């Protein structure tokens, strides 16, 4: 490494959503580190990304304020921010605030850093779209849509969630994307997916006065469970079976739920109690266990792990009872545009007949891209095309080391290219929410800062 000799360590973070802002904040916490961070975000605002840009008050965080601090070692940072603004009280720290509030918090964390760092020049924000990332002999080069390019020593990809529907669902759109224009409130709508994103979309539609029938389709048609205050069980790593086949682990897990229930607890206490070990469990599994989990167990796991606050759960259940929302377990066979409508051919689970659903809009709320290489993110695609990155073996994210270094097509970890956040789900699995992303960011920040010199 000749980074120190050439002066400041220049780190380019691509993506100024929650993950990118958290990484910048953790990097800058070390006041002496001689670094220069450039944070690139195509939206005009930083800290929002796909997750926190929603304006709807019903779109609340599904982690309480105590889990959402930007810094894991300062867990009340966000709570204090809320209390200062009268949005929470000290005696009720387990408050679930709207996601837009969290976006404001992150923007302010960044704003404060920019204020204090501005003169030292350690942080630069750039509202531009990035189109490609490549390595050069000396470092990295990041090309922007406006034709300019940036050079640095290290690039970190923090592009989070896919914004475009996957290629096989081209007639569908992601909610909140530019194509999500108003529709006739009486028109039928089809939503692909039945998880929390579907619930978000359902809430957005009804908040906008939508009255038409909403059909939500997924392989099993399972809807997220309800949140309940509980007492997560205490576990140590020494208690958790690691490295086993999936069926062995599932047997252990079910037994633990039974034991916990016998002692007056609830399955939620087990699901929440095991959460600190989810990454370690995932990383310990052989490939076969991971593949089987994604194929067979994940849908079941997700509805228990990612739950809805009671008010929202009640509304969803009521909408189902009143036939405003129909959950369908089945498969999408084909979807095409017919005039100003869409026609979707579906087959219900365990039913041989094919059914056609007509809808004015099809939303893609399926979450994880089934094949990352077939995804629509141009930066990810450019990296894969050049052999600088490769999809993980399950093709749900980029292949990275536990230290977040991207693996090239030859399997060698890069010293210059890193990825954080949901893009690394193949290696970390439990890396969708702030409590996990902030820990990942703290680790990568420590690693990168150790490669930088001390500011004069």
């Amino acid at each position, binding site marked *: 490494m000749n980074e120190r000799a050439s002066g400041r360590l220049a780190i380019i973070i691509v993506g100024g959503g929650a993950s990118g802002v958290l990484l910048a904040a953790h990097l800058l916490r070390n006041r002496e580190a001689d670094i220069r961070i450039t944070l690139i975000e195509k939206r005009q605002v930083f800290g929002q990304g796909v997750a926190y840009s929603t304006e709807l008050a019903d779109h609340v965080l599904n982690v309480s304020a105590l889990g959402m601090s930007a810094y894991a070692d300062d867990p009340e940072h966000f709570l204090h921010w809320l209390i200062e603004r009268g949005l929470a009280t000290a005696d009720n720290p387990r408050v679930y605030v709207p996601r837009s509030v969290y976006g404001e918090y992150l923007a302010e964390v960044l704003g404060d850093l920019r204020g204090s760092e501005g003169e030292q020049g350690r942080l630069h924000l750039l509202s531009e779209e990035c189109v490609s990332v490549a390595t050069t002999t000396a470092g990295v080069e990041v090309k922007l849509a406006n034709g300019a390019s940036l050079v640095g020593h290290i690039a970190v990809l923090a592009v989070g969630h896919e914004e475009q529907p996957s290629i096989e669902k081209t007639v569908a759109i992601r909610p909140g994307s530019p194509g999500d224009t108003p529709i006739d409130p009486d028109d039928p709508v089809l939503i692909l997916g039945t998880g929390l994103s579907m619930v978000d979309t359902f809430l957005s539609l009804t908040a906008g006065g939508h009255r038409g029938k909403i059909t939500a389709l997924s392989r099993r048609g399972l809807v997220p469970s309800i949140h309940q205050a509980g007492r997560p069980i205490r*576990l*140590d790593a*020494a208690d*958790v079976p*690691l490295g*086993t*086949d999936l069926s062995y682990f599932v047997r252990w897990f079910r037994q633990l739920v039974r034991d916990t229930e016998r002692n007056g607890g609830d399955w939620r206490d087990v699901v929440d109690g095991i959460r600190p070990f989810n990454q370690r469990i995932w990383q310990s599994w*052989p490939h076969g*266990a991971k593949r089987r989990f994604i194929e067979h167990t994940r849908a079941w796991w997700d509805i228990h792990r990612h739950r809805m606050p009671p008010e929202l759960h009640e509304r969803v259940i009521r909408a189902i009872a009143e036939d405003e929302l129909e959950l369908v377990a089945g498969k999408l066979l084909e979807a095409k545009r017919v005039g100003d409508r869409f026609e979707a051919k579906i087959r219900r689970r365990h039913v041989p007949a094919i059914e056609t659903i007509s809808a004015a809009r099809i939303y893609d709320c399926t979450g994880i891209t089934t094949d990352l290489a077939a995804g629509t993110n141009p930066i990810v695609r450019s990296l894969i095309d050049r052999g600088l990155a490769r999809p993980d073996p399950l093709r749900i994210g980029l292949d990275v080391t536990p230290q977040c270094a991207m693996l090239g097509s030859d399997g060698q970890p890069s010293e210059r290219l890193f990825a954080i956040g949901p893009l690394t789900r193949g290696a970390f699995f439990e890396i969708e929410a702030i409590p996990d992303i902030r820990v990942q960011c703290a680790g990568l920040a420590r690693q990168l800062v150790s490669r930088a010199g001390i500011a004069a």
Partner: protein
Amino acid sequence: MLTKKGKYGLKALVHLSELPQGQLAFVNDIAVANNIPKKFLDAILGELRNAGFVQSRKGKDGGYRLARLPADIKIGHVVRVLDGPLAPIPCASRTQYQPCEDCDEATCQVRHMMLEVRQAIAEVLDNRSLAQMRDAANDDVLAGIKYQI
């Protein structure tokens, strides 16, 4: 505490890790070579198979082999399957908790420290692979031979 079951299981895995990749071993051969009662070894290998560490084939040419590379099998993971949660004394476990008859666990200082010890056990055993365990033993033998020469 590592029970006899845990120890025998690890010895059997080391035995399998010394064979060429994919080659099956007879239970009887493993038992004789490692001085393990055969019936007990049958039960142990059955549990290791259920957890996915070894594979078996039935019949005259049947036997056991590793389901993964020795470098991909961690010692701590095997011990949890055979002996349950890693714990120096039975009360120092959270899922298989067995209270002692003669003390109050809430105020027991011994238990408190043993909960810390189990983290250290996990730290060591989860970072050692079967390959390392096999090679460490061989290295020691080689070192001993050199020393004697």
